């Protein structure tokens, strides 16, 4: 069965974001366990740059999608699956916008500004405050574990379409067409 593919741009943005999210998430788990050192500070900076990049890519994806509709769902799919996949996709996009912002606010609350790629200073979103920083860190972590859970479902569903249903749904996001 041939399926309409996502556009090349949509695919590139999707897979770039996917790789960056896996790297940023793993780096977050890794760096927070390190003893304080210059390298730890470098990894924190890198983590923030990855997050801001995911944010920018996500904004670009939403803008692209507004002008380039996604391929329609398979007519053969049950309604609940259509609704669930639609909800999951928008939830993922929302998290990809909110999580970097939560990290940025957290960084501001710790008194550490964010300078994107070491070049572009971003404004501090809140003043330095220890108690808000602690709460914002919990928020940032919770949102990330939520993202990890939804991504797991997203990947499992795609693999099921590919290897169990053989319906070409996952292929729409794979390179080539």
């Amino acid at each position: 069965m041939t399926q309409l593919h996502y556009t090349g741009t949509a695919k590139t943005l999707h897979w770039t974001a996917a790789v960056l999210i896996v790297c940023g998430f793993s780096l977050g788990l890794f760096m927070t366990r390190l003893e304080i050192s210059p390298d730890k500070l470098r990894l924190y900076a890198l983590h923030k740059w990855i997050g801001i990049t995911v944010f920018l890519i996500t904004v670009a994806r939403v803008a692209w999608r507004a002008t380039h509709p996604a391929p329609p769902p398979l007519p053969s799919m049950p309604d609940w699956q259509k609704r669930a996949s639609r909800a999951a996709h928008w939830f993922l996009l929302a998290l990809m916008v909110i999580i970097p912002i939560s990290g940025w606010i957290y960084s501001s609350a710790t008194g550490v500004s964010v300078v994107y790629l070491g070049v572009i200073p971003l404004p501090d979103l809140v003043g330095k405050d220890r108690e808000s920083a602690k709460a914002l860190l919990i928020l940032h972590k919770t949102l990330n574990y939520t993202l990890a859970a939804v991504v797991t479902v997203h990947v499992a569903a795609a693999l099921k379409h590919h290897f169990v249903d053989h319906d070409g749904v996952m292929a729409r996001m794979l390179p080539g067409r």
Partner: protein
Amino acid sequence: MRLFRPFIPSLAMLLMASSGASAQGVLIDKSEVRFISKQLGVNVEGRFRKWKANVDFRPRDLRHSKADFEIDVGSIDLASEESETEVRRPRWFDAMKFPIATFRSTAVKDLGGDRYQVDGRLTLKGTVRDVAIPIEMKKDAAGNSVAAGEFTIKRLDFNIGDGQWSDPTVVADEVVVRMRMVLPRAG
């Protein structure tokens, strides 16, 4: 820790009472000692939670004005408890051995308008350096005098952050110290 000097009108102040607003002591809760350092080119803000001040500001009698500070370096407020613990260690402030940093003014100069310069000696981690703090005096809504000033020190002059931390591209040598002192309205 808090030092509110009782208001004792000095002879000079009685003489000057009608001609200039003098101020003594510092409203600690409204005042702050902050600093901005740069890590990997990024501004990182901190402050000291505990410090004492002995300020006697007399705009018409600068020779008898003074500003002395004692800062509890262990009370540092940074991004995280982890960094605070780190900077109390010997390679940074060595807060066990040098718990207090002091500034003692040696002269207060009039720079014209509301601007003054406070010269003094800063003792930090056993090293003494002369510093000059330009300040600007303003009034807040309650009529208190607010002295705001900032100056830059080089942390490596005081051996703050050595070994793996001595690289100024990781933590910049220059640290900007910002002080905001609220002095109660005289009389």
